[in-house]
């Protein structure tokens, strides 16, 4: 009896939803093996990763804090990936959004007004869009591969932020540390839950999920995005220009990543630092896939991956595990998901030796 893959006549809807669950279970099994190799009690490891962080009100609020950028960017990237536009430079767009949003916050240093926060967030969106528009322009005008350009621009963005906090935006009273001043209270996002860091950015993320869902399921734009991704020629036949889809999805991706950056600096961080993201822009790629390129899925996946960040921190403190475990776990989750997805289009069949021609 050998297992073999047989193509299904219709893709399995059940497997579309079941695959991430199976992938999660397999990742946990792999996690247990990883813990055993690292000589950590698997139970203690899993507890530290998945239970411990959620045992306090503060922990749950932190989950929201970490999930906010992941969900935001995850939703935005879902749209792009659905259209076959591979913007993998969200990290750079987030960085630029955070930098420009942060610069706006510093501009209003020690000033008051309710216009300040909306201005910071709007600056984040616009600057993220502007940064992503470089990618769109090069793709549409010169046919330059967006995977490579967006990624190269991520490195450039991080270096640029580094340059700025070492230079013009450096705190004048900061003993030459490469950091900006702490933002004034008027430039910090309001806290939702007293005694925690959970801020109104989380609500923005939920709003983006809802809008994303409506756009993808009900509107012409969503239809165009889906069509462009699954059959580019048919999409052109229907009259949707490829260049338009590239522009729109990159602007959405850049804008929302920029918003996430502005939210990060004016929320949990509160100043500009050489590093304002532990790789949210890259992890959001995993979020988008684990979320089935669906906005609601991205929300659930964003929360799950936020948990791995928190779990990684807890495991570091309690079990002295390196933070890198988080990245390994996240990548394993994506690997298992990609492998399980084969079951959407194929089913496993246990057959005896392949049927031979009878030689009689």
């Amino acid at each position, binding site marked *: 009896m050998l297992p073999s893959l047989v193509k299904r006549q219709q893709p399995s809807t059940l497997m579309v939803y079941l695959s991430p669950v199976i992938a999660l279970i397999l990742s946990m099994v792999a996690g247990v093996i990883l813990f055993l190799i690292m000589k950590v009690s698997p139970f203690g490891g899993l507890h530290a990763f998945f239970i411990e962080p959620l045992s306090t009100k503060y922990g749950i609020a932190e989950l929201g804090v970490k999930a906010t950028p992941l969900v935001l960017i995850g939703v935005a990237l879902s749209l792009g990936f659905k259209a076959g536009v591979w913007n993998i430079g969200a990290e750079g767009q987030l960085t630029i959004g955070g930098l420009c949003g942060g610069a706006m916050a510093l501009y209003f240093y020690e000033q008051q007004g309710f216009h300040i926060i909306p201005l910071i967030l709007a600056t984040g969106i616009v600057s993220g869009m502007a940064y992503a528009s470089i990618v769109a322009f090069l793709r549409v005008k010169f*046919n330059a591969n967006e995977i490579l350009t967006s990624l190269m621009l991520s*490195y*450039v963005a991080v270096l*640029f932020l580094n340059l700025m906090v*070492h230079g013009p935006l450096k705190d004048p009273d900061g003993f030459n540390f490469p950091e900006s001043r702490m933002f004034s209270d008027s430039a910090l996002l309001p806290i939702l839950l007293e005694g925690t860091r959970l801020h109104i950015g989380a609500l923005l993320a939920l709003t983006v999920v809802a809008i994303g869902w409506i756009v993808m399921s009900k509107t012409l734009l969503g239809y165009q995005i889906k069509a462009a991704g699954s059959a580019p020629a048919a999409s052109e036949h229907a009259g949707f220009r490829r260049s338009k889809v590239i522009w729109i999805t990159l602007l959405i991706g850049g804008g929302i990543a920029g918003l996430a950056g502005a939210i990060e600096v004016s929320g949990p961080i509160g100043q500009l630092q050489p590093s304002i993201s532990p790789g949210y822009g890259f992890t959001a790629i995993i979020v988008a896939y684990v979320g089935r390129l669906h906005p609601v899925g991205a929300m659930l996946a964003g929360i799950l991956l936020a948990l791995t960040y928190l779990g990684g921190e807890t495991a570091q403190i309690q079990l002295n595990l390196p933070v890198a475990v988080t990245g390994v776990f996240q990548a394993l989750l994506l690997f298992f998901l990609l492998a399980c997805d*084969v079951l959407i289009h194929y089913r496993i069949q246990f057959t005896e030796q392949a049927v031979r021609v009878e030689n009689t």
Partner: protein
Amino acid sequence: MEMIGPALLTIITAATPLLFAALGEMVTEKSGVLNLGVEGMMIMGAILGFVAVHFTDSVTVALLVSILAGSAMAALFGLLVLKFHASQVPTGLALTIFGIGLSALIGQSMVGIAYDGLPKLSLPVLSSLPFIGDVFFRHDILVYLSLIMVFVIYYFLNKTRAGLILRAVGDSHDAAHAMGYPVVKIRFLAILFGGGMAGLGGAYLSLAYSPLWVEQMTAGRGWIALALVVFASWRPGRVLLGAYLFGGITILQLHAQALGIGVPSQVMSMLPYLATIIVLVIISSDPGKIRLNAPASLGRPFHPSR
């Protein structure tokens, strides 16, 4: 004159890891597979090569381990893409994320340990030539190997039947399948080769270029290697040219301050990335040219019909 010698040396050392990774990826792409996990394979080659040399003190073992590390990563990619029909782009991304995470995990206890660097092999007679001898004939084995590989791959692709079959599979997997060529097996081998080469490129970074282990030390070189393949229009000779061009940009970065140019270091560090973008733009703006040179099946999934 006294600047030129060290400058040329820097070009060569900066170009070698790119050359390995880009040559390997080129062979993989020639078979019709786009593996975006070069960065992940490189960094695994870097850390495991470093670990191996630390524990065995043997360069040979270290290089073999690097090759195996890159190939093992590539095998994971190949399994997902060829057997599980996973889409190539996200699988390659996952490989990169995985490699960066796993290498950091493995390398945790390696941070701060120094290594002398690969021994230099002085070619007899040639290395005693004034100036030229120092610059061109006193390198470690990997530099020579990378240059030899350019010729080996050129010869393989253009002069051997196996190379012809590899190109055919990359041009049309359906036609190759119809003729009875084992498309999946050929692609798997090409992916493994690409992984092994990326592993060597990584090993060069941790054993010769730096030589020490730093988290994320590949710093985007895997991605630059991917761009180099496009720049080179999938030709080995042009990969060599491209890699040395990028090596040249790196010396600008390292020597600019020495020359007293008042540009911040961050701006100089941006140069390779910006250069990659510019090179991509120049080479891609003629879509017809790309289409003629790029393997026609590149990145397309292969589902043998029934």
